[in-house]
């Protein structure tokens, strides 16, 4: 495979590519979905293919093929170079890809028990157990869904700088949803857990408890009320702080958005963008996290990226192109969903560092506001500078006392204001939810986290 990869890169250069890279992948993944006590689907997908990029004077060509023969790879290479030349002929921008140190490395993600070696019957027993645990919790649980996914991908990355690496990536994720009904009210609870590694992850107590967590949340929400709409000071839990780190700032720190003039952080390097207590980091090198990788999809060694230090913007996340155009070193932030997608700049494990308040102190100090818990989803438009995320549960806080439970609160804010409005950070930092981030029609596995954090002037959308 490696010989084939090097031959193809040389072929691209001969055809006129100033820079070329490729990713050859063999991947296989299993998905099991159980609903209401029965299997809904048991799935295996087998993916084989190669994606090739060619660069000519400021424009890229990308082609992919699902057939791994020398002939099909050469045809894809020719298509990629032709596409780059066609784009280059009409491009206004001109730049080059600055030489990066070649990396020749092999890595197999460590695990104690390969998911691929575990019998499908054993995996099914685990998922059926999750589903059963939800129903068993309370008679008001009316419907349940439990899901398990694993993937093992063998990926060769080669480029015309001499990089030739081979990574065997392994990850798993499990998720539960429970629906509860009582006296005409319906609510949904959910819980998930994911990591790189092997099936040992699913044998832990935390993985076994997912169903109970989802069901407990659905039951709790049955007596919740719609959240009042308005502007509030909010205490965000670890999951929501992580969501804020990811949505409110992480995306705006991706250098491709900055180069496209679609980030409000363009021109803000070295300037204060947050309160001085804030440090924001993206770090793919943290072992045993869902966002982990040691080598990015362009073959660049991954690094911890400090994005904000003590309130000042100090870095962006880069790939080979953005680092070349901005005159900095690449920092290994390029990822592709699969061989048939070109690599783009992505986050990994994104978090806000902890502070020195106690969580209880943050609550005690809050005169009137909301305690926000659990994250459903969020999104951002970096050019408008606005973001939104939706929580699982919210609680009224009145003179330091936690009271009424609310549901379905959506929180919105302005990127350049929100982190200046941070009033306190707790000392209970943790990386929270594993999940997927979507960008440019691609998904990437990520983790977010942080401490409990108090922020003023959040706009909360609700029905009341």
């Amino acid at each position, binding site marked *: 495979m490696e010989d084939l990869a090097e031959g193809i890169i040389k072929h691209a250069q001969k055809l006129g590519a100033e820079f070329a890279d490729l990713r050859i992948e063999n991947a296989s993944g299993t998905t099991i979905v159980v609903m*209401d006590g029965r299997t809904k689907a048991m*799935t295996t997908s087998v993916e084989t293919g190669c994606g090739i990029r060619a660069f000519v004077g400021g424009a890229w060509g990308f082609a992919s093929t699902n057939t791994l023969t020398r002939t099909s790879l050469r045809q894809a290479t020719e298509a990629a170079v032709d596409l780059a030349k066609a784009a280059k002929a009409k491009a206004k*921008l001109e730049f080059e890809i600055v030489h990066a140190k070649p990396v020749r490395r092999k890595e197999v993600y460590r695990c104690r028990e390969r998911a691929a070696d575990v019998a499908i019957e054993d995996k099914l027993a685990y998922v059926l157990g999750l589903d059963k645990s939800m129903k068993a919790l309370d008679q008001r649980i009316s419907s349940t869904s439990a899901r398990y996914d694993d993937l093992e991908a063998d990926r060769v990355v080669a480029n015309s700088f001499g990089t030739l690496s081979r990574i065997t990536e392994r990850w798993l994720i499990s998720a539960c949803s429970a629906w509860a009904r009582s006296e005409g009210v319906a609510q949904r609870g959910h819980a998930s857990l994911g990591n790189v590694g092997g099936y040992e992850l699913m044998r832990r107590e935390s993985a076994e408890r997912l169903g109970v967590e989802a069901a407990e949340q659905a039951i709790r929400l049955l007596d919740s009320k719609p959240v009042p709409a308005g502007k509030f000071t909010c205490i965000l839990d670890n999951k929501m702080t992580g969501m804020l780190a990811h949505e409110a700032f992480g995306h705006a720190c991706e250098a491709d958005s900055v180069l496209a003039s679609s980030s409000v952080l363009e021109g803000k390097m070295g300037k204060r963008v947050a309160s001085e207590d804030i440090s924001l980091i993206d770090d793919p090198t943290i072992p045993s996290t869902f966002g982990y990788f040691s080598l990015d999809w362009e073959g660049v060694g991954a690094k911890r990226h400090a994005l904000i230090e003590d309130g000042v913007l100090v870095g962006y996340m880069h790939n080979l192109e953005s680092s070349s155009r901005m005159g900095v070193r690449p920092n290994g932030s390029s990822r592709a969903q699969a061989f048939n997608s070109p690599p783009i700049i992505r986050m990994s494990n994104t978090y806000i560092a902890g502070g020195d308040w106690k969580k209880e102190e943050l609550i005690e100090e809050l005169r009137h506001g909301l305690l926000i818990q659990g994250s459903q989803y969020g999104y951002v438009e970096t*050019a408008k500078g606005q973001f*939104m995320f939706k929580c699982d549960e919210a609680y009224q806080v009145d003179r330091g006392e936690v009271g009424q439970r609310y549901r379905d609160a959506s929180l919105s804010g302005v990127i350049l204001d929100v982190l200046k409005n941070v009033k306190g950070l707790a000392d209970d930092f943790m990386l929270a939810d594993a999940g997927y981030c979507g960008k440019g029609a691609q998904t990437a596995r990520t983790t977010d986290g942080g401490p409990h954090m108090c922020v003023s002037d959040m706009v909360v959308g609700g029905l009341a």
Partner: protein
Amino acid sequence: MVDIKGLAEKTVRQAMKLGATHCDVMVADAKYVSAEIEKGSIKAASMLFDPGVAVRVFMQGSQGFSSCTGHDAKAVCRAVELAVSHAKAGTRDPDFRDLPYKSPGGRASGLFEKRLASTSVDEIVSMAIALADKAGDDKRIVGVNASVNVGTGTYALANSNGISLSQRLSSFELGAEAVARSGDKMFSGMDGLWSRRLDRAALGRVGESAKEHALLGLRQVKIPTGDRPVVMDPLAFGFILSSAIGGGVNAESIQRKRSYLTGKLNQVIGSDGLTVIDDPTIEWGPGSYAFDGEGTPARKTLIVDGGLLRSYLYDSYTAGKDCVESTGNSSRGSSLWSFRHVPSISSSNLVVTPGDSTLKEMVRETSKGVYLRVTFDSPNLATGEFSGLMMESFRIDKGELGPSIRQSTIGIGVVDMLSRIDMIGKDPRESFGVRTPAVRVSKARIAGSG
């Protein structure tokens, strides 16, 4: 050239030999070409060849599924073995009745445009540049990001009940985002097009709209929290409706009592002016098909009739469970099919019957309200409650469109939202799988930062 119909039929036979009681196989042969613009300059062109096979097998109702890239006989054989072993391992499901049988109908025109298949990369690059030039045609526009995506595919579907069908589908999609700056103010405007046919005229229309809305947003205001009438652009209403109705009437969610529309058949869920149809037979509609992901012929389904909920959307499994006919809403992806996805229920093209107002009239007849153009939020389908960010919205004052609103959200129950529609536009457009005009909702809770 692989005979994909023959491959689908042969693969069904293989699965049945291995003990499957029912089986369907979809063989795809698709190609995607795209061009991307960054900051006004062509940045990348891509070409993807994406052949593959999806094998779905049932044994005593237990469903096993496997997919593989390419059409290689060994890989397909392995996929069959995996699907069969998964079906064997799964639990029995007595609610599974059968897969569809051959039936007449399902002839839809306007699914595949030959011109798109023969459009050259140079032409696609030129179209992307034309789109970006239009979107950037003002000195206050500091950046334009745009893309043109063309896809064509041939899909063969065979099952163990004798169905053997094929159809060709094409797609043409445009997207443009213009970023405007003036002093310390920054705003972006976006627009897009989703169709099955080439539409060069749309390049100017989409580009102009992205530019116009970016510039409109430079004037910004904060508003206080309160109840206001909301004029919803097709972009916003389409996005909300695709989930609120498209997801809400999914028969699986109904049968499992997960949808806020459970038990609401023949009840009022909207104003008497609101009629919504699922229609996969629309010529050039981005969600149109001749047959669905299981081979059921395409047919129209009346979902909401003058505010009354009339039907749910079914595939063969849920139809069997409810002892009704499938509505032909088994989906294998979006505009173009994917061999990677297990078939599941989805709307095709949701169509809102137009009314007689123009967008201008709706704004003119609103004294103090909000014009919501873009949101990317969906309702909670369990509760039917919707709260989301007004990503792009404008204040309406005395019938005039005013500045863009910063940091504000909208909250309303979906049934309340649909019931409070008091004006429906007469100019529909495609928006996220929904063909809808603008509508006015007489009252919603708006949370502001002012």
